[in-house]
């Protein structure tokens, strides 16, 4: 652009060159070739004056500023990328229940396999492991049933229930069944209403978890 030289009377400055002259402060800082052309060319001189007038008018415009709470409002909505160790901790903290369950399962499995091997049992195949677990679970279930029965007998609750049924009349039984039915119906209605009212919050939670 500095090397520009007018080639003839019909040649005029480019818009960028006009802008350069208009912005030059002081005017002597503009390239001499451009200034020389303007001295000779009334059309370009007029163009430079007009452009300078517009640029100066634009520079006079007030600079707009947002309201004072703007930065706070932005920062509330910004979620910056977090370092890996922070993300790792958040991952663990948000899934502690699942991870604990996995840990317990893994530990239980390790103990079970250890006991199996220590007991001199044959090589564990899926069928043998399932059979072993079935026996263990059955034993645990019946053990629990016996424990509950023993508790009921020793605590006297079983005796109280027996006395209650001995004195129960048909009307009393009907009233009890009706009362329980009414209670169940009321509880269902309350639960339904609570769930219906909580639907927006549940939807929000669902959306946030995605």
């Amino acid at each position, binding site marked *: 652009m500095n090397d520009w030289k007018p080639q003839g009377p019909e040649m005029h400055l480019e818009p960028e060159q006009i802008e350069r002259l208009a912005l030059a402060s002081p005017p002597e800082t503009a390239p001499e070739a451009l200034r020389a052309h303007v001295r000779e060319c009334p059309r370009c001189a007029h163009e430079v004056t007009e452009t300078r007038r517009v*640029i100066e008018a634009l520079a*006079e415009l007030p600079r*707009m500023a947002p309201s004072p709470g703007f930065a706070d409002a932005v920062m509330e909505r*910004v979620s910056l990328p977090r370092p890996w160790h922070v993300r790792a901790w958040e991952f663990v903290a948000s899934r502690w229940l699942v991870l604990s369950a996995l840990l317990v399962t893994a530990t239980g499995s390790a103990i079970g396999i250890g006991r199996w091997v220590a007991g001199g049992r044959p090589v564990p195949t899926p069928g043998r492991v399932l059979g072993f677990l079935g026996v263990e679970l059955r034993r645990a279930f019946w053990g629990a049933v016996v424990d509950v029965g023993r508790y009921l007998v020793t605590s006297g609750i079983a005796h109280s229930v027996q006395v209650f049924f001995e004195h129960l009349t048909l009307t009393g039984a009907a009233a009890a069944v009706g009362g329980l039915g009414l209670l169940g119906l009321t509880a269902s209605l309350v639960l339904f209403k609570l769930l219906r009212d909580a639907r927006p919050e549940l939807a929000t939670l669902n959306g946030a978890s995605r």
Partner: protein
Amino acid sequence: MNYAESSDKELVARCRRGDERAARELVSRFERPVFSLVYRMVRDRALAEDLAQEAFVRTFNHLDRYDPTYKFSSWLFKIAHNHTLDHLRKRELDTVSIQGAPDATTRDRQEATSITLESASERPDELLEAKRTGAAIEAAIDRLRPEYRAAIVLRHLEDRSYEEIAEIMEIPLGTVKTYIHRARRELQEKLAHLRE
């Protein structure tokens, strides 16, 4: 760590490591120019705040997509410009607006078209003339096409180079020159009456 003296690049690097203070410093550095650009495109303070805010949020929430070889401010302006332009296209906002301070009907307009008295010695007739010019140029900017408006504001109010404007508006350099030239030409024509 002195945030105020850090470069944009350093602050962006800190933001990428989760430093919120660095982000806040960038917001305070650029809230005025970004808001100014958006405001002059939509002519509504509340809307401009919303759009500028969204531009900042998008910028920070997508820092992973930012290419540090470019200026951060250009990227931020690009997001603000695109978001505002999208809004204007969606809403088909009427870009032909009001006529400046003498006829300004809202406080925003009065504020936008007013000129601050810089010294006590300024004469009232000069002030009135300045207000008239300010109002006229605001009204003239209002009537420009949104693309011309963005280009002229970035060039002469925000002092951005032609290359940066091309980057921000995602258009070729030649188109930027054409837009700015045409915008200035239109402003000259619309302001001609002030000289008469």
